[in-house]
């Protein structure tokens, strides 16, 4: 994975190339060994190039190969490797290169202006909505239903930004206090500046291989053991925002495939999607890693620290490493691989993890993608 920063000069193709090359080198493969390529990238409006998948494909190693671009909003970060898994699990490819790219800096003065066009044009756009409002309402609802204090949510931002100090690609690593978060600028109450991950540019890549090929490449096998995804209606106004039922459905699909019956007991490390601090808590609950409303308590008790019983976002997450939407695959799916393979370096969780889960989330508070991995 590349560093996450504002990287205006490099093209998306160049960042895709950089990440793909790193993944091939780590796997000991060359481009000629790749049978198919999956590329994940978010709305074309960020880069300002329609048919962005076609534009990026040569940098992603897709020229002259079976190639597929996938996009499910913020959920792309974990959906991309799921799409890669289809290629290998179906037997169509022995080696699939999965690349995730995002370049948000081309869109100015702020990539939020691209988000201005995702709303229902008749019902919502006349109100001139922006994304932060919507998430502020979801956070407000979650806090109201469970009586959660803002400081118990701010703890997540403190933890993840501190974990990111150990990530070489991090954009917003910092050693902060809860007070720093609570005193940061109010954007749309209860959302404050330090509750949010920053827009960013970057790319990440991973190699999926059939068991036969993988055994020739490494002794430290990590298997994809469960995959799930689910999307609810874009009419988010018809459901209660306090619990992401669609994430729970995606998780159940993945747990069933992975034969996991007791997620809190069987999962050793988790990377839920954390574009906002409350989302990590919301998603821990959606992933059935704890009861509804229990995630802030576990966080307060230190359970989710890197050396806790259930390390959550040991990468530093989107809050600390950055949020180049699809490319956050590097801190979700890639991180779980590195943790299980024992390759996470200073970020390595000390509990000798055997099973890990990652999840991404997106669209209008409606999409969840979940991937479970297991050490061979």
């Amino acid at each position: 994975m590349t560093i996450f920063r504002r990287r205006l000069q490099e093209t998306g193709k160049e960042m895709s190339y950089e990440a793909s090359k790193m993944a091939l080198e780590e796997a000991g493969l060359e481009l000629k060994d790749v049978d198919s390529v999956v590329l994940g990238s978010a709305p074309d409006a960020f880069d300002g190039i329609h048919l962005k998948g076609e534009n990026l494909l040569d940098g992603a190693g897709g020229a002259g190969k079976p190639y597929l671009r996938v996009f499910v909003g913020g959920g792309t970060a974990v959906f991309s490797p799921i799409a890669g898994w289809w290629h290998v699990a179906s037997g169509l490819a022995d080696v699939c290169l999965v690349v995730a790219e995002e370049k948000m800096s081309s869109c100015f003065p702020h990539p939020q202006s691209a988000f201005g066009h995702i709303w229902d044009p008749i019902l919502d756009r006349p109100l001139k909505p922006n994304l932060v409002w919507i998430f502020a309402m979801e956070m407000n609802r979650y806090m109201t239903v469970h009586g959660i204090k803002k400081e118990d949510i701010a703890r997540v931002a403190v933890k993840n930004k501190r974990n990111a100090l150990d990530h070489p690609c991090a954009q917003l690593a910092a050693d902060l206090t809860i007070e720093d978060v609570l005193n940061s600028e109010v954007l749309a109450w209860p959302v404050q500046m330090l509750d949010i991950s920053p827009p960013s540019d970057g790319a990440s890549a991973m190699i999926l291989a059939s068991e036969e090929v993988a055994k020739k490449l490494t002794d430290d096998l990590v298997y994809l053991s469960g995959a799930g995804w689910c999307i609810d209606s874009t009419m988010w106004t018809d459901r209660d925002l306090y619990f992401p039922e669609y994430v729970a459905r995606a998780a159940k699909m993945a747990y069933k495939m992975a034969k996991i019956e007791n997620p809190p007991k069987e999962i050793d490390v988790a990377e839920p999607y954390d574009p906002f601090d409350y989302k990590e808590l919301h998603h821990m609950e959606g992933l059935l890693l704890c009861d509804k409303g229990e995630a802030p308590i576990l966080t307060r008790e230190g359970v989710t620290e890197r050396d806790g019983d259930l390390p959550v976002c040991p990468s530093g997450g989107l809050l600390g490493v950055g949020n180049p939407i699809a490319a956050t695959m590097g801190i979700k799916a890639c991180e779980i691989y590195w943790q299980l393979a024992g390759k996470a370096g200073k970020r390595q969780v000390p509990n000798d993890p055997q099973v890990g889960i990652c999840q991404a989330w997106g669209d209008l508070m409606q999409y969840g993608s979940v991937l479970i991995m297991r050490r061979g």
Partner: protein
Amino acid sequence: MSFTHWHGDMEAQYIYTAGIAGERFFRELKDNGKLVGTRCPKCDITYVPPRMYCEKCFAELDEWKDVPLEGEVVAHTEVHVDIEDNKLAEPFVIGFVRIDGTQGGLVHYIKAPEVRNGMKVKAVLKDDRVGSILDIEHFAP
């Protein structure tokens, strides 16, 4: 910027329509100052804004229902900055209002001395209506 670059945009313009169900919703709002929804009898769901189909069972919906202008604040936020991160002179509140007797509701401005979830509010309509969501000025207690 020191490196080679161009400024550009992706020129395109669009016409957005309210659709079959939306047309009736906005006509009722404009002409009669009323909110209406569609009901799925099988699933017992009243959709506001109305939809021409039930997303659960996929039935085509033709049962129209007048619904009240009143509802309950389910979630809200107080906005302090604009989309380019400039501080607003006056913060404003936007929220989601579940319309009474329905499973749906509207996102809109809420004006009250203090807004809380669970609060009862009513749509305040403009006198001069054009058939837009902004025919509702805001919701207020």
